[in-house]
Structure formats: C-alpha cells, structure tokens
C-alpha cells in the first residue's frame, strides 16, 4: 500500500554530530540513510528504535512535514514524494491521519471543533454538509468514548482523553493511512498499558493501516503486525514481532530488544540445519538458523536469559550444557535472574521466582539448540 524507497534525509553537519559521510566538499549528517519498506493493507507497521535513530524523521517524511533529500514515497500508484522528479506533495494534500506525541490538541477549540477541523478545512467541492460533519464527528467521538465531552474545551480533558481526542481527529476523515508518532509515551504506565490494547482493538475493528513510531520495545511487540528496527538512520531488520525477538538479525537488534547473552564463537561444522560452534567454554549446537554460515566464520551467539535453564543438578542428556558458580542473583518480582560465572563468561539466566540459588553455589546451565541465535559480528 505505502512504499518507501531509499529514503534519505541529510543535514549540513554540525560539530560533533555522528554518522558523517564525506562528500566532495562538505560533510553531511544523515538522519535517515536509505530506508526501504512497504506497508501492507490493514497492518500496523512499527518503526522501532532508540531516540535519534531516524524513525520520527522517516514518519514525518511520509507525512510531508519534512522534505527528504533523496528517495521516493508512494501510496498505491500515487507518488507523494520523489526526489529525482522533484515531486513533493504538501502535507495537507496527502490525506493522512496523524497522532502526535504531544497530541497537538488545539487549546482554543472545543472537543467537537478539534475533531471537525479536518472536515471543515476540506476544499469546497469535497466538504461534507454541516449535518454530515456533525454526524461524523459524533460517530467518531462515540467510537473513542468521548461522546459526552463534545462541547467541552479541549484543554479540560485528562491526558488519556486528549490522547483519544487526537486519535478521533486523525480518524474523522477515514484516512487510508494513519501515522502515529509515539502516541502513548506521554501517558502514565498503567494507562499506557490499557491504551495499547485499546489502540490495537480499534485498528483491527476499523481495519486501519497504520505506521506506528515508538522507542518502547514491549509496545512494539504487543501491537505490531510487523516491526522495522531502526538504528543510526537505517533499518536493521524488518519482521514479525516473534521473529524480531527470537531471531535477531544483528547484534543491535538483539541488544535493543530484550536482554541477551552474547558469546563469541567460531563455526566448526555445518550439517543440515545444525551448526556447531566452538566457544572458549566448549562446543555449542545451534539449530534452525535462518541463514547458514560458512565453515570457519566467527559469529556472535545471542542467547536470551529465559532460554537458559539453571539447576543445581546436572542434566547430562542435553547438548548445550555448562557448569559454573552463581555470582549474584536479582529478584525482579515476576522472575529471578542469576548471573553465573562460566570460565571467562558471565551468563544471565531468568527463571521462575521460586527458583532461588544463593551466590557461590555450583550450578549447571543448559540451552536448547533452537534457542541459540547466530548473529553476524559487526
């Protein structure tokens, strides 16, 4: 539906800025550095990354609020932006709905007026009649459960209500695409949690196509159909939430999403779907790798703490087993982490809080081969 091709946005560099590239005479900084993806009909597509990774710039470029320096943005057959052909449709002609991080509720208007604004400013030929505007506004206010507040000044709403008002305003024109720029980041933790499901429900029920920008990995995992993880202006990986989590393609993705144990290793044998690697603490087996490495490659193993099984008795019958001594443990409420020294390695394991092993105890760690992910060394 929406296609973004080699999108780039660069600035004249200022001192100390990162991501430089030397060109003929000037140094330019790339906020977005060649991003490609496409968003499918009816999906919630998330741009996820740390602050400054270029996700918001990408979203704003799609919205038309920022002019990229290179690349193309298409919506179906409609070209919205094409640097090579000098096409740049203005934001107000793109017909998207957008929810801003600050909500950007107009404080001088009532709740109703805020929502009706996108309809009010339509060109004369397309603008619906007064009655229809009223109907549509009330309809959308009902959907987001603000129907009773229509005549209130917008500033009299609570944070969560303002957030929903911003959503209503974006929805009222029934846009083909919704752009959501960290819409939940200004809410408190409890409300944020419930709004996640609320937003997801709305998106599914109204069959909305949406691009969602967030730096919160759990938000991204809960809500998205697909996630693009961004770093330093580039996309590191695009995939379904489960893929991203269990099969990170790069060290950055593995580090950014959840926690991981990273172990350097060398590939010693490749047989079918099974890869054997040699670490400083012995041999490990990895299974179901998305890409088969070559023999002799140096790779990085990424092992999630919850995939590491810790017990005081040896298992004996499993392929990937180490023994070591518990160094520290940390109680997290719903889980407990043990950090175990295995030779020169430190392995973090996460288990049910009923398992609590005092530091200094000899323990045995094991990992199922399909839980060992091979990541390229940067």
């Amino acid at each position: 539906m929406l296609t973004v091709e080699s999108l780039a946005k660069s600035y004249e560099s200022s001192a100390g800025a990162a991501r430089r590239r030397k060109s003929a005479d000037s140094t330019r900084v790339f906020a977005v550095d060649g991003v490609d993806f496409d968003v499918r009909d009816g999906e919630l597509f998330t741009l996820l990354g740390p602050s400054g990774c270029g996700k918001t710039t990408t979203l704003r470029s799609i919205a038309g609020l920022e002019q990229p320096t290179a690349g193309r943005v298409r919506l179906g057959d409609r070209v919205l932006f094409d640097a090579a052909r000098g096409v740049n449709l203005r934001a107000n002609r793109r017909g998207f709905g957008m929810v801003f991080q600050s909500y950007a509720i107009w404080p001088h208007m009532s709740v109703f007026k805020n929502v009706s604004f996108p309809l009010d400013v339509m060109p004369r030929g397309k603008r619906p009649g007064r009655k229809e505007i009223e109907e549509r506004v009330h309809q959308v206010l009902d959907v987001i459960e603000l129907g009773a507040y229509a005549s209130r000044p917008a500033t009299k709403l609570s944070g969560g209500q303002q957030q929903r008002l911003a959503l209503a305003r974006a929805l009222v024109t029934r846009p083909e695409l919704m752009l959501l720029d960290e819409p939940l980041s200004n809410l408190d933790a409890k409300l944020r949690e419930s709004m996640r499901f609320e937003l997801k429900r709305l998106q599914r029920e109204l069959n909305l196509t949406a691009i969602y920008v967030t730096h919160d990995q759990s938000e991204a995992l809960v809500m998205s159909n697909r996630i693009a993880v961004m770093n330093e202006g580039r996309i590191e990986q695009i995939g379904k939430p489960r893929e991203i989590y269990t099969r990170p393609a790069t060290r950055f993705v593995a580090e950014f999403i959840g926690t991981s144990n990273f172990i350097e290793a060398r590939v010693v044998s490749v047989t079918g779907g099974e890869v054997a690697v040699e670490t400083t603490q012995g041999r490990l087996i990895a299974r179901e790798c998305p890409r088969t490495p070559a023999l002799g490659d140096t790779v990085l193993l990424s092992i999630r703490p919850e995939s590491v099984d810790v017990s005081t008795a040896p298992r004996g019958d499993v392929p990937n087993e180490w023994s070591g001594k518990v160094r520290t443990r940390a109680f997290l409420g719903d889980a407990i982490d043990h950090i175990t020294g295995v030779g020169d390695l430190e392995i973090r394991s996460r288990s049910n809080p009923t398992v609590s092993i005092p530091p200094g105890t000899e323990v045995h760690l094991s990992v199922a081969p399909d839980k060992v992910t091979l990541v390229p060394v940067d």
Partner: protein
Amino acid sequence: MALASTATAPRGGDHETPGPGPSPEPTAPGRLLALLRRLLSFQGLLVGGAVVIVGYLALVPLGYLVHDTFLNSTGTGVSLGAFSRAYGGNSQAGSMMLNSLGFALGSAALALVLGTVLAYVQVRTDTPFKGLFFAASLVPLIVPGILYATSWIFLGDPSSGVINTLVFKPLFGTAPVNIFSVWGMIWVQGLHLAPVTFLLMVAAFRAMDPSLEESAAMSGARRSTVLRRITVPLLRPAMISASLLMFVQSLESFEVPGLLGLQNGIYVFTSRIYFVLRAYPIDYGAAGALAIGLLLIAAAGVLLSGWLQRSSRNFQTVTGKAFRPRPVDLGRARPWVGAGVIVYFLVTVVLPVAVLVYASLLKYYAAPSRKTLGSMSLENYSEVLHMPLAFTALKNSLIVGVGAATAVMLLTSVVSWVVLRTKAPGRRVLDLVAFTPIVIPGLVLGLALSFVYLRMPLPIYGTLLILLVSYCTRYLPYGMRYSSSAMAQMSPELEESAAVSGASWFQTFRRVLLPLMSSGILAGWVYILVVSFRELSSTILLYSPGKEVLSVLIWEQFENGQFTTLAALGVCMVLILVLLVSIAYRLGARFGLQGDSSN
C-alpha cells in the same frame, strides 16, 4: 560475513540519486516554474510582502543617513567635511562624548544595582509589600521620560526645588541638590530604567534552578558564599545583557538630557544633534555625522551584548521553566527591608507623581508653602481643555499609535512565522534586519527619515504618515519580540497537525496560529500603543505645525517655560496611559518580561 538475515533491508549507499546533494535536481525550467508558482501563491505574496516592508523600514533610512552625511557640499562626491564640522573645532566634541558615556554608564550602573537588588528581594526573600514592586515597575510604562524628568525638576531644582527648599534649607541652610547636572541626569535616568532591569532580573531569578543553590548549601557553603560563588556567576549573563541594554537606552535617551542638560550646556549626543538642527543654517551633514557616531556606539553595545551572551550560553541557567524557590527568611532584617521598599516606592513613584499633580494646580510653579497651597486651582486643566491643539494632539496620538500598533503586530506575526517556522534561506538575516531599529536612536531615525522623505517623491513629509512610518520602524523589534515569543511558545505540532488534517497554509495561519497567538499579539499591540503615546525623540524632528501629537505638545510647553500647563497636560497623559495599561491587564496582556523599553 554470510550471516545476514533475509529480512535485513538493503543498506544505504546505493541510492539511485547520485550524491547526497541538498535537494533533488529537477530540470532548470521546471524548477523556475515551481518557484514562480510558489511565489505567486497567497502565502508567497504575504510573506514576500512582509519581508520587503521590513527591509524597507529598517534599512532605507540608514542608507540615506550614511549617503547624505558623506556627501560633500556640491553633492557630487564623498567627503568627511560633515564629521569635521560635527566633531572638530569648537564643537566641544570631547566633553560631549565624555558626558554621553558618563551619563549612559552611570545610569546603567544605577539601574542595574537597584534593579538586581530589588529583584533578589522580591523573588528570593520573604519581604513584606511584594505587590509594591510590580506597581513600581509600571512607572516607565505610564510615566513617560519627559514627565519623569519634569517631576524631578520640580523636586530637584537648585533654587525652587522641593528637596532644597523643604529639606536642606531649613535643616542645613544650604541647597546642595542640583538636578541640572550630569549626576542629576544619571539619577533620573537610572531611576526611570531601574524597573526595566528589575523585570529582566526577576525573570532571570525565576528561571534559575534553585537546586543549584541548594546543592551548594548541602555541600556546606554559607548563604553569603552561595550568593557569591553560585548565584552571581550564574546570573552574570543576564546582568551583562541587562546592563548593556540599559547603557544603549540611556545613550539614546533624549528627554532626560534635553530637559536637564541643555539648561547648563551639558551636551550628550542626542541633545547635540537636536541643538545642531535648531541652529541656523541647519547643518544636516553635521547632525548626520553625530547620528552616525551615536549609532556606532549603540551598535557596538548591542553587538558586545550579543557576543557576551553567546559565549556564556554554554552554562544555560535559563531552562524556560519557572521555579518556585523557597524564599529566604529575612528574620530580624525583615522590617528594615520592608521600610526600604516603602522608601523606594515613595521616592520613585509617589513623590514624582505627587509633585506633578501639585504643580498642575498652580499658576506659577513654586515650592510648597502656605501661600502656594492656598492658591491652588484647576485653572490649568480648564486651560488644557480649552486648548484646541490638545484635542488635535490627542487624536493624532491615537491615530498614529493605533495605526503603528496594528501594522507592526500584523507585520511581525508574519515575519516571526518566517523566521521561526520555515527553513527559508536568509531567515536569520531577516530576523536581524527586523531587530536593527533597536540600535537606532529615535533622534537618529527622525533625522534619517527626514533625509529620506525630503528627497523621495512620496509626499508624506509633514503629514502624520511620516510619524506612522517612524513608529513602525522604531517598534518593529518590540513587535518581533512579542510575536516571536508567542510563536515560540506554541508547539509546531499544533500547526503540523492542522496541515496533516488537510488545512492549507492560510487556513492554518488564520484558524490555528492567529487565535493561539492572540494574547501575545494583543499584549504587543497595547505595548506599542502605549510607547507610541510617549514617543518624543523621533517625533520632535518629524512633526510639523498642526500635526502635533501629545508628547510634542508637552515638549512645546517645556520650551515655552509653561511648567504648570505642562504638569496638567502630563497628568492627563498619565491618566490616559493608566487607562490603556489597565485595559491591557484586563484583557490578560502581560508586560514584564518583554516590555523592557522606555524612551
């Protein structure tokens, strides 16, 4: 390495567009056409028009000033003759410059010390009468410089002044106070400017994070050490910029040196320019040369201030957040500080206003005695009411003031949008140009404008329009400050969300921007109206008989020695200004941080 996941996006560096150029390179005619189309849109016309007007207002007079000053007598070549006439020979340029600098430095120092101490006491201590501070801070707004100076003549005249006749004569048998001296000028100007410093420093004190001081206290520093080693260094940038602003304002002041200095032949730049233009034959070149000298010193002051602030920006104490620090407990000193506040209020507000009212009730001014108190009447007021010129002047003041306020605020709201919200090339230059009039003293502007319109075929010389042009130029920087701070306070997302909602530029401007900026624009509008009412220094060179405004009428009374009529007129003017300012407050306009000018 061969382990890249299938899902990894292709890396950058293989863009189809060659090179990371700043913008795509469409064909040349296509680009020209696109540019033309943009310029001809409504937005283009509005923005372009505003830019042209600002450039015209701010730069053309200066161009003419320089041109006419360097022109030789035959009008064919460059010469420095004007400068030698202005500064050489028996022009006493040396003492004039010393007086100027001494007056400006002294006034700035007095205003800085008073303003800073008052701000500290107001913001950081539990002093009584906190409300009086802000009442006192309105003085420069509602009592114009010319009236303030007149009041101090009534108070400090060596022979008939209230202070000498009622305090020193009976007690010590001497009359040491002479307001017609450099010290007198410094006193009056400094007191008149102190509230402006006060407001600037209050803002600085409030914007300072108190935890910076608290952590010093937690480190074991005594209060005096904290003050010396933390508070003052952190406030230094604010103090520097405040004092330079005061310096430039004093340098440009015409009212105080004009009223207090001319009498004893104490000249400063501004009064010298006025003197040169009053002599016959009028030597425009010499006046221009003096104006350029003044302009250069003022510009140097402003540049220095900008430079000092830039170098101190790396320790920003101003976070834009207002803090509510816990006030210092004054303890046993509290009644003394309270008494000090009362005395300050009496001396700077009550006394000058009271003496003005007193004088307005007399036939001839004399220090208060049983005889004068007995002869008080409202005769002056009835004279003012029967003066046909008074109503013309009031009407003219209103027309020009309302016109200038409206024009400036409309212009600056567009210009500040260009400066703050677009990435248009040259927007910084535009900002700078809109601010240049701040270094142009009123008298210099008046002179420059008369050069322009004596020459140009536009027939506005000798009409009210020339005053309107002058006021628009003078108050452009203040208008900019109001509009741009109103715009800066507004999140750009509010406009962006309108754009994403489908609103065109003009719809966004009219339906989102203007309503949200309205209180800032209104505040600026009233402020400009108020300061236009008192504008004297450029008006005095541009008005023509029959086109007087209120401030000129007051000046004429002074020149004719009609002090008591002047006082009555002055009281009326103060009342009008009080009315305007209170309407503004009722409407929710806030002066203070932005309102930092006084003529």
